[in-house]
């Protein structure tokens, strides 16, 4: 059985009208974590974070690691920031793993209507 999805944080997606975050051009982004990283970070399935525009892989991961320092090194290398080999990034039914970390993410991610999925690759047989 697929567990029920946790509620998305209120206000995800849109610039936060009237808020200081909105004034700084931040977007509220939804990120879905794999089970082991949820445990490590002590979060639920989905987290919502304010990310500066333009919304890119790098900006999302920077914000995620700043909020949850335990995830540093678990998704990408500490120093080179290269994605770990068995971690994948999906969004809007697309595999974005091989996109440039500085490429803008799909509008639906930047708008918060679709989550940015961090996935542990199926491997091991």
């Amino acid at each position, binding site marked *: 059985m697929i567990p029920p999805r946790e509620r998305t944080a209120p206000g995800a997606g849109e610039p936060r009208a009237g808020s200081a975050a909105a004034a700084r051009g931040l977007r509220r982004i939804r990120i879905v974590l794999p089970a*082991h990283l949820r*445990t490590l970070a002590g979060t639920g399935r989905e987290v919502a974070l304010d990310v500066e525009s333009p919304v890119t892989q790098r900006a999302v991961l920077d914000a995620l690691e700043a909020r949850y*320092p335990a995830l*540093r*090194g*678990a998704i990408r290398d*500490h120093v080179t920031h290269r994605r*770990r080999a*068995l971690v994948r990034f999906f969004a809007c039914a697309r595999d974005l793993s091989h996109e440039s970390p500085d490429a803008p993410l799909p509008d639906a991610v930047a708008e918060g209507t679709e989550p940015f999925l961090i996935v542990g690759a199926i491997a091991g047989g």
Partner: protein
Amino acid sequence: MSSVRVLVGTRKGAFILTSDGRRDRWDITGPHFAGWELYHLKGSPADPNRLYASQTSGWFGQQIQRSNDGGKTWEPAGNQFTYAGVPGTHQWYDGTPHPWEFKRVWHLEPSLTDPDTVYAGVEDAALFRSADGAKTWEELPGLRGHGSGPHWAPGAGGLCLHSIVLDPSDAKRMFIAISAAGVFRSDDGAATWRPANRGLRSEYIPDPTAEVGHCVHHIAMHQSRPRTLFMQKHWDVMRSDDAADSWHEVSGNLPTDFGFVIDMHAHEPQTVFVIPIKSDSEHYPPEGRLRVYRSRTGGNEWEALTEGLPQRDCYVNVLRDAMAVDGLEACGIYFGTTGGQVYASADAGDTWKPIVRDLPAVLSVEVQTLA
């Protein structure tokens, strides 16, 4: 009354077993860090409630966990292991140079005196130290930098620094072992190192008596005799009486001189334990009989200890960090198998029983004797 805490690292999490000094009833907690590989957990001798754990995953890399309450709760600690300077290359399996790349922490060795100081032996082989309770890590580069590093080659399990032995009588002396480079000793607080493999003979390398290149599986020291060390090598059980300046073979009458673990009786510096394992690709007990061998004479003369251990159809392995002893008056001995059993003896090996079975494959066993 004293009690015992057994820290078990497995392929799919950590388990903590506790008992009073009788060691006949065990409480088990876990899995801690379910689904992750726990290569090693160890408690600080200076503060038994301070535990360190190496948590690793092929997907999500290396984590270090720290507990301040004996393993009831844990917090993620620093996991950045960056080689000092330009990492350089070591030898790959095919003999070509291969860049040094951090993969995982095999062994954590807390300082004998300071709970916040802990050493980490890692793959690709290097020694790191934290002096702030594992928040940050710094390589001790004298080991890889002493000259032979470019010639080190990995064993079948990788180029791993798996053994760290601290000298209780000399805070500046320590020993480490690497598969497959061998033993190194420092006399200056890990600043400089020299190979300590004289007397080892390994027919599987081009020069069987080379200064480095030996597949040392584990080393052990008795706290009361820090100049005497014992070694389980890929083949051969070895002994040194001069702080690893030289080694001589003490395999004696063992059914095979291959194995991974070696450990010492807590109170008898001449009493040594090994678990012979068939070599090459088999890596299970000879004849399917799980036997601990004990020497009360510092090697050469070994007796099989079998009571309570399976003596037929047993094809598990016992990995290099998966044996430990407690410090109670009647010395307890513990080992874990790749079949998920942890066996214990409360009478120095005379009799055994499983204190847990059906865990994931056991990678490491450490024991704390608590007041």
